[in-house]
């Protein structure tokens, strides 16, 4: 039987080594494939090495653990020949919001410093989960991810104020765009593209900060970088690779749907 493989994502080398040492002691047969040091590196390495278990630090440079998990889920499931999706264990030093979200979603996580007893319990659950990696388990994991992404608020977040009018600068003019005219929000580098049926604006606020201020019944997040007004969706098509694409009424764009959010577009 092939050995179980693991990948550790941790930007602090001492802590990565400490976890590796502890794992070697508690699970000698677990083969450690490597250590990823940032949020982009972990996705690249995980797709290349295809581990069975992934220890994912939620605070890493580049992009954080939740974003990396979403990107990984998206890319992984598109290639049907891949091994089953890895069992993910989140790791955190102290993040009260994340921990609260984890508890509410019954997601397995480890606290740093990692205690041998807690690790033993977690590994027991990991071994069990390894035996049940089917579509249902994957869907459950994706649902958890969706909730975690929605819930994890930054520590000094201002109180949530619904967006009604968006001031968007175009050169020296500031256009006041009513939210009712917006059909798509799309993240682009450090900016966010705001699309109305006829125009396009650029905002400097990151998408992560806009999303909590939108009514999630009206605006659906379909990708970590894309939010769409549900009523503006004309149709959704599936390409040969299995990826879903949204076609927006009145605009030529098609928007990719990430695997994490694809459940919404299943026919009733």
């Amino acid at each position, binding site marked *: 039987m092939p050995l179980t493989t693991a990948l550790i994502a941790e*930007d*602090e*080398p*001492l*802590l990565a*080594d*400490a976890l590796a*040492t502890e794992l070697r002691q508690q699970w000698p047969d677990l083969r450690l494939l490597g250590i990823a040091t*940032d949020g*982009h*590196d972990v996705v690249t390495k995980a797709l290349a090495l295809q581990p069975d278990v992934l220890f994912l630090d939620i*605070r890493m*440079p*580049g992009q954080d653990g939740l974003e990396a998990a979403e990107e990984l889920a998206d890319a992984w499931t598109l290639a049907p020949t891949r091994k089953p999706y890895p069992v993910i264990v989140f790791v955190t*030093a*102290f*993040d009260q919001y994340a921990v609260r979200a984890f508890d509410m979603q019954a997601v397995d996580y480890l*606290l*740093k*410093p*990692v205690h041998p007893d807690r690790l033993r319990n977690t590994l027991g659950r990991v071994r069990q989960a390894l035996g049940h990696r089917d579509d249902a388990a994957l869907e459950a994991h994706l649902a958890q991810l969706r909730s975690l992404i929605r819930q994890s608020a930054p520590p*000094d977040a*201002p109180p949530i104020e619904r967006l009604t009018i968006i001031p968007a600068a175009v050169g020296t003019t500031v256009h006041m765009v009513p939210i009712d005219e917006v059909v798509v929000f799309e993240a682009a580098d*450090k*900016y966010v593209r705001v699309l109305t049926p006829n125009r396009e604006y650029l905002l*400097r*606020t*990151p998408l992560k900060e806009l999303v909590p201020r939108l009514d999630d019944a009206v605006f659906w997040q379909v990708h970590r970088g894309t939010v769409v007004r549900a009523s503006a969706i004309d149709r959704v098509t599936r390409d040969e690779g299995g990826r879903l694409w949204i076609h927006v009424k009145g605009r030529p764009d098609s928007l990719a749907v990430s695997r994490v959010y694809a459940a919404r577009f299943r026919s009733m």
Partner: protein
Amino acid sequence: MTPFASFPLRQWLTHGLLTALCCMAIAAWRALSADHPWQVELVYSLAIGMTAWLVIDVGRYVWRASDDVPWPAGWRGGVLVLAGVMAGFAFGITLGDAYGGHDTWQDILAAPKAPLGILALTAVVSVIGTLVFHSRGRARAMEQQMLHARKDAAEAQLRLLESQLDPHMLFNTLATLRALITADPVRAVGVLDLMGDFLRSTLQGSRATHHRLRDEFDRLQDYLALMQVRLGSRLTYRLDLPATLALVQIPALLLQPLVENAIKHGIEPKVGGGTVTVIAAETDGTLMLTVVDNGIGMRPAAESPGFGTTHVSERLAAAYGPQASLEITAAPGGGTRSVVRLPLARHDQR
């Protein structure tokens, strides 16, 4: 303002009880001194007194000036007391008459001055009672305010301490220490000493108000060395303090939040890390303390200042007024630059 939203029931019942006791005492005195049947006196007394009390104690709540002040504003209070006295007298006399069979109203019509005594008694007792209850209420309200203020102060102190001891940093450092104890015990001891120094200075720093620039830079050095254990090659730092400025007094740990932010928001999230530089310089009698990093920089739109930066601004304002400033901008070439400017006292300059 809903009329009976938060009616202070217990207080009201206490007032009622005290009023009733007072009425009974008056009745007893009248019964003894004028040899009237005590039951009749009791009924008159209670009827007058309790009615007056009800009108005043309920009326003041219904027409209160605000939820914080359960008493009508200005002249309305006086009018209410007057109304209470009148109502108490009228209703009480009627009730007493019904019980005792006496027709006091006829007596009044016959000799208008006769009831003045009772009226005066009612008025005096009502006013005294009102004043007593009123001042008790005020004392209680002030006590509540004091408790609230104390609670707010305690919370603010806690937040301050929390902001100085970032839990995320603390637990990551503890985890690092734990890892080092088995992997590299000698280094572990060094890190433990650094942590001890840092914690001591942070906790002391929140009590001591000023120290020398040299001490400030020493503390920053401790902190940066500690962070470097965790971040490894992802953090480099440089501290530049000219000897002529070493003894200048500044508020203790003024720059700590700025250096923390540089690491937490600038260096840590950047793939590959970066450098933090702290420079002290003097131009035209102004001391310039600069913290600059080449991390991921501020967002293009300036975000609202966090607790740490606000705290620095507040400390500067408290110590130096408008002569001091904190300016945070994007550093040329990427990253963030924070500059603290404060006036140099003459004896600081050499």
